[in-house]
């Protein structure tokens, strides 16, 4: 054990809200961590495909039902997976002490949040491409609009899932609690998003609630693509709302990261 003659000290770098190099380094680090865990990657990417496959043959007798539900699910799967993965990953960052260490270093909170969003967004792209391709060409999902628009909504949903997971992890003291947040945050949205019955058939109170839940707009957006050949005004509105919600919640998530803690 020796101290070699020292390399010149690294000049202090300024801390800014968002630094591209630090964000990219963080995203690369998160992906590198995942690479050491191939089973998680396989589960994240394959489970949605298996579910779609299953669903197709559950509704073997009525392909019309599969068309209606399949498109919605293409938006919901990435949201749920990314929610789970992000909430656990950031919780681990909080409990392992690495978050405290990073925030004592010149890392901006925005860098960390953006790094996570970037890393999991990349995974979400792979997941969505596979699921969309399987649904459209493998399982014969009948969509009027462009598959690219389906993919766009799926990606925004994944981003929303990442954002919600990051935010919720601040309120979970253990991984056990983090998993329980899934039914608490996701299931109500799932029931009210119009997957099971059109939203205007619900009790007015529930319909009003569903109007403020972001997943409703994710499903509405998917349905627009399902029925129309080109981008409708409703589609643009829906995607903007989902994107806006994702950014808002990402901001809230960043605000839950505190440099000074008790």
């Amino acid at each position: 054990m020796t101290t070699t003659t020292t390399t010149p000290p690294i000049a202090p770098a300024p801390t800014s809200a968002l630094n591209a190099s630090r964000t990219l380094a963080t995203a690369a680090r998160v992906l590198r961590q995942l690479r050491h865990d191939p089973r998680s990657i396989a589960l994240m990417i394959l489970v949605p495909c298996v579910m779609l496959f299953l669903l197709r043959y559950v509704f073997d007798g009525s392909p019309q039902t599969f068309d209606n539900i399949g498109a919605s699910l293409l938006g919901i799967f990435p949201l749920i997976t990314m929610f789970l993965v992000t909430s656990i990953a950031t919780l681990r960052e909080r409990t392992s002490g690495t978050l405290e260490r990073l925030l004592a270093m010149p890392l901006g909170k925005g860098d960390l949040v953006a790094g996570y969003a970037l890393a999991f967004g990349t995974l979400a792209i792979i997941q969505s491409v596979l699921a969309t391709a399987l649904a459209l060409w493998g399982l014969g999902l009948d969509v009027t609009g462009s598959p690219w628009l389906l993919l766009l909504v799926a990606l925004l949903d994944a981003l929303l899932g990442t954002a919600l997971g990051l935010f919720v992890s601040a309120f979970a003291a253990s991984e056990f609690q983090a998993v329980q947040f899934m039914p608490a945050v996701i299931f109500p949205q799932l029931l009210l998003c119009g997957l099971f019955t059109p939203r205007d058939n619900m009790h007015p109170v529930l319909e009003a609630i569903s109007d403020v839940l972001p997943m409703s707009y994710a499903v509405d957006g998917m349905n627009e693509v399902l029925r129309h050949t080109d981008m409708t005004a409703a589609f643009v509105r829906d995607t903007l709302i989902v994107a806006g919600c994702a950014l808002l919640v990402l901001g809230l998530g960043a605000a839950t990261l505190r440099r000074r803690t008790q």
Partner: protein
Amino acid sequence: MMNYSSEPPDTPAVHAEGLTVVRGPRTVLRGLDFTVPRGQITGLLGPSGCGKSTLMRSIVGTQAKVTGTLDVLGRPAGHPTLRTRIGYVTQAPSVYDDLTVRQNLDYFAAILAPGHAASERRHSDVTRVIEDVDLTSHADSLAGNLSGGQRSRVSLAVALLGTPELLVLDEPTVGLDPVLRRDLWNLFHDIAAQRGATLLISSHVMDEAERCHRLLLMREGEILADDTPDALRTRTGSETVEDAFLHLVDEAVAAGRKKETTR
């Protein structure tokens, strides 16, 4: 950029006046006044639960509800420009278990010195700190597969990145075998002597106190003594620092009782 040369060179590494920290209902640190000189190893000693970790967290700027004066390297603790100048090691190793030793260090180095231009310097920096903590043969092992002592050395290596001016090490030698402990203390002395860095090292093992230049003895959120090991032994007429500490505790307890009875 900040102009660091304008800073007076004789400011102490850490200067505290009336430093108080409240955690929940408890006052963990009670109005501490002390100074940590630059370029030396200061040992922070005391029983577990006496507030050592809270004091260290206050110095690196991660502790909430800190009142009083606390200046670190000439700036208020927690100042953003201090983040590259302080290396901090928490008691529990804080590294990513699912990354290799080198990948861990590569990431933290990229946070300290981001950008493509610094990549060569980062690489040599990472290689150097892995050598410093004697983990070269394990550089490509996953941190999660290492022993407890090895993982805490990875955590220490992260703090050595970028040659910080102040190293705050919370019980860095806990659970290490005697040979490693000796080697690490030699490393600490080298860092202080060759780089002129300041080290603040906490421990509850009193025999490590003999290796420090100065000691801060703590008990129940207060500082019992702030002196060199020699002066402490002479003042209390004790053979070892451990005896000196016990002597001072007895004195403090007796003084406390007296105050109660005279009230």
